[in-house]
């Protein structure tokens, strides 16, 4: 029922290292696209002169669904025949959410990129910081109020059977 609830991340796509196209170092025009559930979240500018060591250092605020387990980074290259994906990395959300560090810790993360054949292709460097909303700091009950209004009509039919029957408050909802 909280499928529409989201968390906000501050992602900085910093740089790439040793990015290759068919084993040769890329000359220029490399950019990165970040997605979750195949939905694009953001893309960087095209790096004109960094060659196979592109440097963007671009900060983006993105929202990802709370249930999302991964985000992906695709490194692509602009060519005369269109954009070509050179490498991809999958970033588990657990690498920057949860764990022992404070919720809003700035994580500097690096990942191995792999091309469509699974071959190693360079490294992508990002930093990720989860934006901690005010309500999370105060209490968790207020967090649920964010989700409820959206799910009110569509979800209750699915949820109620799991709830003990005969709770007066539920009855009220049905009648209403």
């Amino acid at each position: 029922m909280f499928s529409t609830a989201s968390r906000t991340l501050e992602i900085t796509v910093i740089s790439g290292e040793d990015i290759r196209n068919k084993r040769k170092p890329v000359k220029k025009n490399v950019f990165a696209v970040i997605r979750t559930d195949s939905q694009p979240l953001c893309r960087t500018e095209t790096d004109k002169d960094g060659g196979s060591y592109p440097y963007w250092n671009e900060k983006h605020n993105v929202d990802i669904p709370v249930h999302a387990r991964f985000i992906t980074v695709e490194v692509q290259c602009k060519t005369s025949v269109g954009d070509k994906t050179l490498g991809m990395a999958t970033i588990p959300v657990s690498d920057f959410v949860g764990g022992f560090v404070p919720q809003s810790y700035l994580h500097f993360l690096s990942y191995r990129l792999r091309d469509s054949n699974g071959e190693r292709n360079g490294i992508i460097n990002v930093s990720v910081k989860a934006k901690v909303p005010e309500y999370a700091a105060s209490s968790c009950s207020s967090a649920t109020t964010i989700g409820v209004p959206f799910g009110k009509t569509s979800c209750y039919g699915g949820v109620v059977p799991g709830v003990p029957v005969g709770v007066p408050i539920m009855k009220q909802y049905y009648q209403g």
Partner: protein
Amino acid sequence: MAATTMPLTSSTGLGGSSNSSRKSSEFENETLPCRTAPNLCGCVACRGGSNRGSKDTALLSLAAFNLRDRDITSKSDPMAVVYAKKIDGKLDELGRTEVVLNSLNPTWIEKVTVAFQFEIMQPFVFHVYDIDTKYYNVPVKTLKLEDQDFLGEATCVLSEIVTKQSRSLTLNLHGKSGHTGLRNLGVLTIHAEELVASRSAVEITLRCSYLDNKDLFSKSDPFLRVSRIVESGGSIPICKTEVVNNNLNPTWKPLCLSMQQFGSKDNPLIIECFDFNSSGNHVLIGKLQKSVADLEKLHKGRSGANLILTSHHGHEKILKGQLFVDQFCEKEQYSFLDYISSGFELNFMVAIDFTASNGNPRNPDSLHYIDPSGRLNSYQKAIIDVGEVIQFYDSDKRFPAWGFGGRTSDGTISHCFNLNGNAGGFEVEGVEGIMTAYASALHNVALAGPTLFGQVINTAAQTAGQSLSYNSNKYFVLLIITDGVLTDLQETKDALVKASDLPLSILIVGVGGADFGQMEVLDADNGQRLESSTGRVATHDIVQFVSMRDVHGGRISVVQALLEELPGQFLTYMRRRDIKPRPLHVAQTSG
């Protein structure tokens, strides 16, 4: 002292990108400049500058109070002498103060310069003398100390002073070693201030265009070398860029030059552009001479400067190739001591190998054998050597201590058990506490196996991670002492990669005669960043490995080799996150 200053100078000073900083400055002797720099990100901090931070020099000021009066008609005329105590116990004189006339509470003006070295203990001995009136016109350097009246001596290690937020330490003076006596000889106060010419540094991004092609079948592989012209006329290389392959219009990663490296903004620098050759015979493409101030002008004017090539006849040819400064920014760089003296701490943790390959501890040829004569085994030696250096940077001196690979009293094999046998807490008191816990664990824990570091690393990472909720001024150092070969290298790599973004460094000491080849893999000194099984790559190198065997008998102690990179790893973490030392007045009021 003289013997131990050498590694410091060779590893600092020169060095541009963090990778090349370890190597000697003359590239003819080395394999190649970094092609795959292990610099994580574009952020200023981890890209540039000498990774070791600056070479820290401290100035000691001395004052005494309530000295003994040795003169009959007047008061004493004191002078202080500073010595470094060498490993063999000999004293090496570092400097003398002036003579203050007729005073029992002198504050000396003359300061004594000492080099701060994190990786070794630096014991100092201070002697105070009453200088006889007949020597008044003799320069203090030539005074024969045995002719003077001895007023007292005091001893401390340099870290004790620099970790104090006031940077001052007061010691009781006592008689010459051997007879202490009951008489009050007064006190000596030592104040250390860091001698930093300047914390300023510039970060510049250089680019060239239309370079000459020096390669036959492809384009040049250019890199830049920056040298400073010194007064004597020669030049000293201060840093170089990475190699950009097959490119006549290269842009290099930003270079960070500290004031210590470039001298002053007007000091001329030579910038040479070479075509990289794996044979080491790099071909000069062209060069030019510019000061930092000139480079700033080029940046402001967005203009290029032409490279010049001098022919065999001494004829200067102006080339078509130009140098541009795409980015120029000045910034401040704090040193390790800046952080330490403003209240940042190193928290020490230890993990000890209890696998069966060490041999039965009751057997004298076991690595865990505790010699009744008091001779330390390798584990004890490593604990003491590392612990006694780091303890000064840990204010509460409560050290987490674990064992791994042993069968604990409840019969199960544990890969991370509390060394003190106490289920409630893993902390022990001081280095002495580690030694006691280690000895008792040898009685209570049976050696078993396999050798797995993962749990110990994860527990240390958890401790480091949790501390961030309360403090941002703690950095953790885990010492793992092991005899052996890891059973699961990937498990350790995964744990290390996961921990690589925390305020944590891991020191591994290998004891015994095993093949430690895989440890060298963990210590990413070859420039290969560790990679986990899920494809995450270590944020930066947090591991330092050393084998007791390799450095045994050498002039560099195990500890020195082990601790050398620690200040650099500390600075990498702090600079990347833009964590600055707290202003001194804030630190003082809170302390």
